[in-house]
């Protein structure tokens, strides 16, 4: 059965079959394409289906991923192929260069799919509803969101429309959708993976990471994408271990902290129960789990929304219709207004282009971020947020003196209904409440499936460790995964 549908297999299973010549690279791609054609019109995990699937474009390079197709989030630059951050303002943008992770994947022999995965515009969101191509749906329940912003990548992997995928995580954008879609999402330590070619949302928080069907695939992909890049000043020149070697089924004596602030009021009782059970399972497997306190947790979301929107407002300033993407010369809005009289033609072009090109959430965040940096507010908002970021980081530093890692729920609730939070930005922002801290502190963190709710929606267990301790996370996650059935559950789509 499985061999009939290679798209349902993991990367490491396929690599084994390729090695044994039980299957060809072309088969794999074709099965993936067949599946996309069949289910994606409903799921919308990919941004532009109309870009056309190019059958049989297998990379020729020898490498450990030779023969495997990989799906890429629409904010990671692929030379010559549309990379639009699911935003109208980047309409038709084909980068003249490859992101470093794409170069590494190509060198490892992977086939880069020419269609990109759907996302919230510029990664602004937690539901993949803010895409100019329309929302992605959750493969477990098409009325629910897949999470976001890497909802397309997570849904594609969960629905077997992809073997594995890359996402990006600024405040939980890999882990939260992985949790909602029942797959494995890994956010590496800040600086572990080059950001060169990742269209920046918040430069001090962004990291690219894998979304996979199991922990071993995550390690395989991490082995390829990690490492120092002279093109990224924030990438760190530390040797990258072979992560597959840390996949040992043993966590005896591992000291795991369980942060009490992550089990808050308003948390879904089922999620709480599922997480408690997961923690008990970790204990049963020999880990030493103890409650801990991360005192500044409640400030993570406000700090995040000050810093991330400020950096975003700056990073998105370049989208102005001069060099690439959409250009609108005039807009109906400003023409009639008194204010536009002082604007010259160029300023009108900027305003029309950006007014038309950005979606609502992007505009909201740019406005909020610009406000936080503007004259007179910098100290009260931006600078203060940077200071509280220090406090959040110090909380973790303290904990990691005594603990090897931290385990917590990935999200406070399972996937919510499409449209449920889109009119209330703040409630949407709060769905990242457990994931944001890892970005603020630069920590590596994984989300792995840890159960299903009564309604059949997945829940995720998050494991965090100190910077550059991805190996500990892999060890704990692998041990848990191999002793539980959750990663084998698949949505019926």
């Amino acid at each position: 059965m499985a061999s009939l549908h290679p798209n349902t297999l993991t990367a490491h299973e396929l690599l084994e079959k390729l090695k044994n010549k039980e299957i060809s690279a072309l088969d794999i791609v074709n099965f993936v394409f067949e599946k996309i054609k069949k289910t994606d019109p409903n799921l919308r995990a990919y941004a532009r289906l109309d870009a056309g699937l190019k059958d049989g474009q297998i990379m020729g390079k020898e490498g450990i991923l030779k023969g495997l197709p990989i799906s890429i989030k629409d904010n990671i630059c692929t030379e010559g192929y549309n990379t639009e951050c699911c935003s109208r303002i980047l309409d038709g943008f084909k980068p003249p260069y490859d992101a470093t992770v794409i170069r590494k994947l190509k060198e490892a022999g992977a086939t880069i799919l020419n269609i990109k995965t759907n996302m919230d515009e510029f990664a602004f969101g937690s539901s993949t509803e803010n895409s100019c191509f329309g929302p992605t749906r959750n493969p477990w329940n098409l009325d629910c969101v897949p999470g976001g912003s890497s909802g397309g990548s997570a849904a594609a992997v969960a629905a077997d429309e992809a073997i594995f995928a890359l996402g990006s995580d600024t405040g939980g954008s890999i882990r939260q959708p992985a949790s909602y879609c029942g797959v494995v999402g890994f956010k590496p330590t800040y600086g572990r993976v080059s950001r060169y070619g990742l269209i920046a949302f918040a430069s001090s928080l962004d990291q690219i990471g894998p979304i996979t069907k199991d922990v071993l695939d995550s390690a395989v992909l991490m082995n390829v994408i990690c490492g120092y890049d002279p093109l990224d000043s924030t990438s760190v020149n530390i040797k990258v271990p072979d992560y597959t070697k840390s996949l040992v089924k043993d966590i005896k004596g591992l000291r795991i902290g369980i942060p009490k602030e992550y089990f808050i009021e308003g948390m879904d009782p089922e999620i709480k129960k599922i997480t408690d059970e997961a923690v008990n399972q970790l204990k049963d497997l020999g880990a030493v789990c103890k409650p801990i306190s991360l005192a500044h947790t409640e400030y993570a979301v406000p700090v995040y929304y000050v810093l991330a929107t400020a950096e975003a407002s700056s990073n998105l300033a370049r989208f102005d219709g001069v060099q690439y993407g959409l250009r609108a010369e005039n807009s109906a809005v400003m023409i009639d207004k008194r204010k536009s009289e002082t604007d010259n033609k160029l300023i009108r072009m900027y305003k029309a282009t950006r007014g038309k090109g950005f979606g609502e959430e992007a505009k909201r965040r740019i406005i909020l971020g610009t406000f936080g940096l503007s004259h007179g507010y910098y100290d009260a908002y931006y600078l203060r947020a940077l200071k509280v970021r220090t406090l959040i980081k110090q909380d973790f530093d303290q904990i990691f003196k005594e603990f090897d890692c931290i385990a917590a729920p990935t999200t406070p609730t399972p996937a919510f209904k499409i449209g449920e939070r889109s009119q209330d930005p703040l409630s949407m922002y709060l769905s990242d409440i457990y994931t944001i801290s890892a970005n603020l502190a630069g920590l590596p963190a994984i989300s792995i499936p840890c159960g299903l709710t009564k309604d059949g929606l997945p829940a995720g267990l998050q494991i965090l460790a100190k910077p550059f301790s991805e190996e500990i996370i892999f060890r704990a996650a692998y041990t848990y995964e191999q002793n539980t059935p959750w990663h084998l559950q698949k949505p019926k789509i």
Partner: protein
Amino acid sequence: MEYEPVIGLEVHIQLKTRTKAFCACLTDFGNQPNSQVCPVCLGFPGTLPVLNIIALEYSVKVGLALNCLVQEYTKFDRKHYYYPDLPKNYQISQYELPISKDGFLDINIDGLIKRINIRRAHLEEDAGKLIHKDDLSLVDYNRAGIPLLEIVSDPDMNSPQEAYEYLTKLKSIIEYLDVSDCDMEKGSLRCDANISLRERGSKGLGVKTELKNMNSFKAVKDALSFEIKRQSDLLDDGEKIIQDTRLWNTKELKTLPMRTKEGAKDYRYFPEPDLPPFIISPTKITEIKKDIPELPEVKALRFQKEYGILEYDSRIMVLNKKNSLFAEKCLTVYPDKDKKPVANWLIGPMLSEANSRNCDLPGLDISPKDLIELIGFTQRQEISNLTAKSVLTDMLNSKKTAAEVIKEKNLVQISDASGLENYISDAIKENCAVANDFKNGKENALMFLVGEVMKKSKGKANPKVVQDLLKRRLV
């Protein structure tokens, strides 16, 4: 009322690195539009900056040479404004912690030293260039990303001349460091000025205007002079100065307000998240210090001490680094202890030849040895100074030695009486009246006769000998 101008200058110099500040594109001038660009300097989405080590070292070097405190910890910030020559609509610059601050530069005004404080010198990236054509503006990003050092003075200058001296001195130092071409025409040195007026003697500050678009040091001086006149006329009429940015119009020779009003500036600076901070260790500073050559001020003092050159002469000799090197060679080659004739020749005929040929002294392509040989002829009174100047011109044009020119043109000065007798007799014969005047005690008349002899000898007669011979004949 009598006003005192208060002037501060912002100077941008392009650092002479091979590649841009944050990417590996070349920095050459004058290439095809948009041919020296890459995704990074175009600000394409997803690209990231990585600082050029030489840009950092050059900046430190300038900071040290300008007596600044070089910051041990420095970082970059983003400065935001929308303009099509700015690819990212923010400029990577330094706001909070510039590479260096609190320096100074001493200028010489009428023989007195005046200290101009330097507030800061920070590194940033240059913008592209706009060319206006019909109803379009065309953008060339070749220049975008070239490292710029912005050097900001305190408002310590009180006249256009002081501003001119400051710029001249600054340029001289930077050329010594060999970190910038400092060519205003090519835009590798740019200067904006802030100027306000106050009642002479008062300590307050008036409303200032910002002047841009000056393309030479002289233009800076002219624009400031114009602005002093304009502002004082307004103040005398009881009007108020409006704080604005004005452009120097080289055709009309006046400053005119910029047509586009930017409104209040709100640059929304924040630390550049893509660039971790930089730590410039004391060891590194020592290392860079060692690499700083002898600067003009010190060199001038040494010239005075070692070669007995006058203060004024020494300052002119060292202003341009290449000139100073040439000068020093000449001074050492010259055999006599008294080096004054060499100094006179260098800052006199040699510099004026260089100026008229629009080059520096080495650019005249005359070897120190050949120049000294020429000076030797005048010292031995074999040719007059006047003749020697034309010999120099001939030498420069023909690449011949002084001896060759003098011989070919038969220019050797006639100093023996026998060779001059005929000229003298003729001169007296033809100018009896003048000769009589002299005999009757009119001293001036002698010089006229000397001139006549010089004419007759085609300038070759030794005027001193002629004078003696004439006196002897007429007394």
